[in-house]
């Protein structure tokens, strides 16, 4: 049995049947990290020693009957922008290189309450700004399917670690596609929940009206299970939705009879890699066989969404990142002349290139004389995009698009062309603008063997429908049985 290839629900089954012990599982993952991390470099901080110790303690407590719990002893990896008490939270930035949060993020607290074992903090684009994880201050992360390709981003470390079997599942965050796009590039499942479903307390803010934490997993069942753990109303986040907690695994049905799937023609064609379009069209044929009805719809807002997204996200970021002032969060420049100089020098030397670019863009669109033309107009376009999606959901239950117009690109391929990097987010950003839930599931590979992701978008708080659609398709596609990362160079 190859332990690290198992999904979490398979691990649970083996634990239940006493075929495996908790310490055996942790040991298998620690060994796997020791073997693969040098090639993939998915972590900022590994906690292998701590995890080993914790696994023994949890095992003892379970044996003595002190604790129970269906997830006790299951390992996880956490994106390095979620606060973990006592363990560094760097956001892959020099600014927070030595920052140790004095509290746990709510999502992390919920993980800890289940006695899930944290194997480490995962690499990302600095402050979650980017789509390739090349903007990490520490190091790049490499795509397990081809080590010359990017894993996507910004949750590239999370997606690559899951794909490389270094963690069984991981938490990521998604502001404009940062869970779904790396999941697509790495052949795993990534879910961005409805805005407000998962508390953002303790998630280092990038764009507060768009950010959302979600699961990155090997399959759809694990996605539903991890979502079950992290959802729930939280007083510490005023945008947290006060709705009843659901069991999302109940939505995992093998058919989609009567489901109407909307296909927006504007998300296909020009700019979309032919194999991506081909595989998604093939998936739509599978859906017909599973009982769904395909409805062609129009959503002529993709480009407006992208422009609006970058205006709003950068505006919010320029404000959110104001707190990094050289006073409270570990980094301070060595020599300075007065307070202003301290601010400027500390920020200029500790923020990376992409972060500075976005702060400048965000400050520009908020500045006197440009606010109405850019920021206010973008907020109006946001209303327009929401109206268009509301109209679309009058005609269908879920919407299917590519997750990304292309498969993973080469390392360095878009690094010197920020606009081209931004344009790769065209299929994912409207989901953040509207606050809707979206899931990316693998639907095949391209001619070079790189995974292709299909995005399923649902209406607000209708995670069940997208999970149902994703699960039903996964049972016939059997991606994990047919395709595996090769770690080729």
């Amino acid at each position, binding site marked *: 049995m190859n332990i690290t290839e198992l999904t979490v629900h398979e691990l649970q089954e083996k634990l239940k049947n006493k075929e495996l012990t908790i310490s055996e599982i942790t040991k298998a993952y620690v060994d796997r990290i020791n073997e693969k991390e040098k090639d993939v470099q998915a972590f900022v901080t590994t906690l292998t020693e701590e995890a080993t110790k914790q696994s023994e303690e949890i095992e003892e407590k379970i044996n003595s009957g002190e604790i129970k719990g269906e997830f006790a002893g299951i390992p996880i990896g956490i994106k390095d922008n979620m606060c973990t*008490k006592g363990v560094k939270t760097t956001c892959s930035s020099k600014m927070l290189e*030595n*920052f*140790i949060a*004095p*509290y746990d993020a709510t999502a992390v607290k919920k993980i800890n309450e289940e006695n899930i074992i944290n194997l480490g903090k995962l690499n990302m684009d600095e402050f979650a700004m980017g789509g390739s994880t090349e903007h990490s201050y520490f190091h790049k992360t490499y795509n397990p399917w081809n080590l010359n390709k990017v894993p996507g981003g910004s949750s590239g470390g999370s997606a690559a670690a899951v794909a490389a079997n270094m963690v069984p599942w991981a938490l990521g965050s998604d502001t404009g596609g940062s869970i779904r796009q790396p999941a697509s590039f790495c052949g795993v499942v990534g879910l961005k929940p409805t*805005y*407000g479903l998962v508390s953002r307390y303790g998630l280092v803010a990038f764009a507060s*009206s768009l950010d959302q934490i979600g699961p990155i997993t090997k399959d759809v069942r694990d996605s539903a299970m991890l979502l079950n753990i992290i959802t729930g109303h939280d007083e510490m986040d*005023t*945008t947290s*939705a006060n709705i009843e907690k659901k069991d999302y695994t109940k939505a995992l049905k093998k058919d989609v009879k009567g489901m109407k799937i909307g296909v927006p023609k504007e998300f296909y064609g020009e700019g979309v890699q032919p194999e991506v379009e081909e595989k998604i069209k093939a998936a739509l044929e599978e859906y017909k066989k599973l009982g769904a009805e395909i409805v062609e719809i129009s959503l002529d807002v993709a480009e*407006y969404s992208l*422009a*609006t997204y*970058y*205006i709003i996200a950068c505006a919010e970021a*320029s404000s959110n990142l*104001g707190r990094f*002032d*050289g*006073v*409270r*969060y*570990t980094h*301070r420049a060595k020599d*300075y002349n*007065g*307070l*202003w100089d*301290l601010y*400027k*020098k500390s*920020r*200029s030397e500790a*923020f990376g290139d992409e972060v*500075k*670019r976005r*702060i*400048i*863009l965000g*400050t*520009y669109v908020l*500045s006197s004389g440009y606010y109405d*033309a*850019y920021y*206010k*107009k973008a*907020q*109006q*376009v*946001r*209303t*327009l995009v*929401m109206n268009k999606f509301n109209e679309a959901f009058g005609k269908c239950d879920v919407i299917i698009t590519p997750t990304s117009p292309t498969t993973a690109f080469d390392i360095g391929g878009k690094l010197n062309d*920020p*606009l081209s990097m931004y*344009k790769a987010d065209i299929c994912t950003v409207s989901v953040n*603008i509207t*606050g809707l839930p979206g899931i990316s599931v693998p639907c095949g590979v391209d001619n070079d063997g790189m995974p292709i992701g299909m995005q399923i978008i649902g209406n607000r708080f209708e995670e069940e429908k997208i999970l149902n659609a994703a699960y039903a398709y996964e049972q016939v596609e059997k991606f994990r049985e047919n395709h595996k990362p090769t770690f080729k160079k």
Partner: protein
Amino acid sequence: MQVSKEQILHIANLARLNLKEDEVEEYLKNLDEILNFANIINNAPTEDLGITIGSNEEKNVFRKDEVKIFEDRDALLENAPSKENNMFKVPKII
């Protein structure tokens, strides 16, 4: 060029960033390209549409204004690059 060198230096100052000469050139070029692209929102039919600041429906969430003691003050101050007497320390301002 939509943005001048003076403007970008003004913006950088507002954002408390120092830009090196080569950064000024690069960011000017980037900003120009990105704003040129972003200008497509001017074609969006938004007449009579209100603004959206967030996607959730709740507007104001109130709680009691109570003082709560954060227990782990030491852990918080542990992150201060400079501190004195349990406080963050900054250079003299007045």
